[in-house]
């Protein structure tokens, strides 16, 4: 039993169980849609969590990469032709490239310069998406062609529930693999003591850059999934508020916790839906919940709760 609990992929087990069992409790297609959104934003939050929880850096414009992925599947097939699948990959590569170019000079420096640079990039992209009406449709957004795989058109929320869950699980698998690998250990070490990591021969700047590029690719794929699920996207996807929401998901769920990313995303996707009955007070209650969570569950929901559950071997 203990060996299963200690296995690096153990955290995936409850998620797989939930993915399989959950549809049995869904009374309508709307629930599939919300659950799909949880997995999609969980994937984006997971990428950001690698950056925040392991490299100790913050991106305040991470939604820009959601935007790159989203608009890649919206504009690409319409203008250049080909399957949206190709543009999911193209968007991820483009996001990774942008992250690499922006991060390379910045991540050599100590401190939170990355936060400022990503903030600037996020605002810039949102403005461009709003104003390049010919290409992006401007503030009204743009429609996204339906994905056709093997002659089947994927349009129902249930289809996207399974696809989003699969992508989240794949992302989580890669993240868990990474954590328990030479590269991952070096990353976790950097977060605790940069100077010690350097003295041991870890190329700190290169490792931070790597994880920033990965986190951008995660967000981009999530953005593509969001666009394909919705069938329509607006610049809101890449906006500043989205970026903050992603950061909140990571902090709320738990920095450095793979499952925490999903829990944080679930909170911030589901809570506004359930609080909608409060009308004008929705945001007030949402803010209050976030504040209380941070006061009483400072390490984040999952790390705090798992401390009560896990029995450490003496």
């Amino acid at each position, binding site marked *: 039993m203990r060996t299963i609990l200690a296995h690096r992929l153990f955290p995936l087990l409850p998620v797989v169980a939930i993915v399989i069992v959950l549809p049995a409790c869904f009374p309508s297609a709307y629930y599939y849609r919300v659950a799909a959104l949880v997995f999609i934003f969980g994937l984006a939050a997971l990428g950001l969590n690698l950056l925040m929880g392991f490299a100790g850096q913050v991106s305040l414009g991470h939604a820009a990469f959601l935007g790159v992925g989203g608009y890649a599947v919206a504009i690409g097939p319409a203008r250049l032709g080909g399957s949206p699948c190709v543009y999911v990959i193209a968007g991820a590569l483009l996001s990774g490239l942008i992250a690499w170019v922006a991060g390379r000079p910045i991540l050599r420096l100590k401190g939170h310069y990355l936060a400022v640079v990503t903030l600037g990039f996020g605002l810039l992209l949102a403005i461009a998406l709003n104003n390049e009406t010919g290409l992006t449709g401007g503030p009204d957004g743009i429609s996204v062609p339906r994905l056709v795989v093997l002659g089947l058109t994927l349009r129902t929320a249930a289809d996207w529930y399974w696809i989003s869950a699969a992508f989240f699980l794949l992302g989580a698998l*890669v993240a868990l*693999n*990474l954590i*328990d*690998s*030479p*590269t*991952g*250990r*070096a990353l*976790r*070490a950097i*977060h*605790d*003591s940069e*100077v*010690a*990591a*350097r*003295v*041991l*021969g*870890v*190329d*700190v700047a290169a490792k931070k850059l*790597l994880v920033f590029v990965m986190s951008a690719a995660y967000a981009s794929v999530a953005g593509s999934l969001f666009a394909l699920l919705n069938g329509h996207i607006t610049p809101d996807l890449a906006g500043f508020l989205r970026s903050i929401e992603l950061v909140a998901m990571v902090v709320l769920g738990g920095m*450095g916790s793979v499952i925490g990313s999903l829990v944080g995303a679930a909170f911030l996707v589901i809570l506004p839906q359930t609080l909608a009955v409060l009308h004008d007070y929705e945001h007030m209650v949402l803010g209050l919940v976030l504040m209380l969570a941070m006061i009483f569950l400072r390490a984040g929901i999952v790390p705090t709760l798992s401390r009560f559950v896990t029995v450490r*071997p003496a």
Partner: protein
Amino acid sequence: MTLLCVVDLSISFGGVRALDRVSFDVASGTVFSIIGPNGAGKTTLFNIISGLYAPQAGHVRLAGEDVTGRYPEELARCGLSRTFQNLQLFRRLTALENVMVGHHRHERSGLFADLFHLPACTHQNKRTRGAALDALDRVGLAALAERPAASLPYGVLKRLEIARALATRPNLLLLDEPAAGCNAAESGELKGIIRGLARDGITVLLVEHDMRLVMEISDRIHVLAEGRTLAEGTAAEVRNNPAVIAAYLGACAEPKCTDAVH
């Protein structure tokens, strides 16, 4: 053979001359200690040798190669490792994982293998684990391997840092006050560990305030005071040097000084 050669190192912080033309040679396979009152510049010297600071003047040569101003990660690849006076452990990692990071410069698994846990990664993990357990065993901490570093007491953490530095397989190991805060028994164990390192051909550069430890294990001792070299020699030579005695007992070597007091 000379492994480390420090030539005329100088550095100032604002108006304070932290090091002023300090020079010494460390022979391969020896234990070389640097002592001096607080503020003498010992840790600054360590920070320059390990690449954390760049000196304003002077050179550092490692195995005949000029390594002045190189980054710590590059020096690690040249076989230099160190510990820190005010512990720099990876608190969220276990003791074993801390030491495994020490082995990082020998890891060869590649990013792709790491992301998908291909055999190259699992094999590397196994080898790293073995090397880390060896290093832990060497400082007598193998039993605490799975404990999170944050849960271990201070004296143990001091030794854990040595194990982590050893896992890099260094030629030159810089120990910054390894006995600070240790009791007599721990300090005795430390003596055995450091002697063992020298026996295995690892050159040890030691900064330490525990004089009994320093006198017993050092092949040579270099004395610093206010950034300058005060004396250098064997334990016996240094112990009987009037300038050293003066610096340590607070008495004044120059008669002028006594006049000023009266």
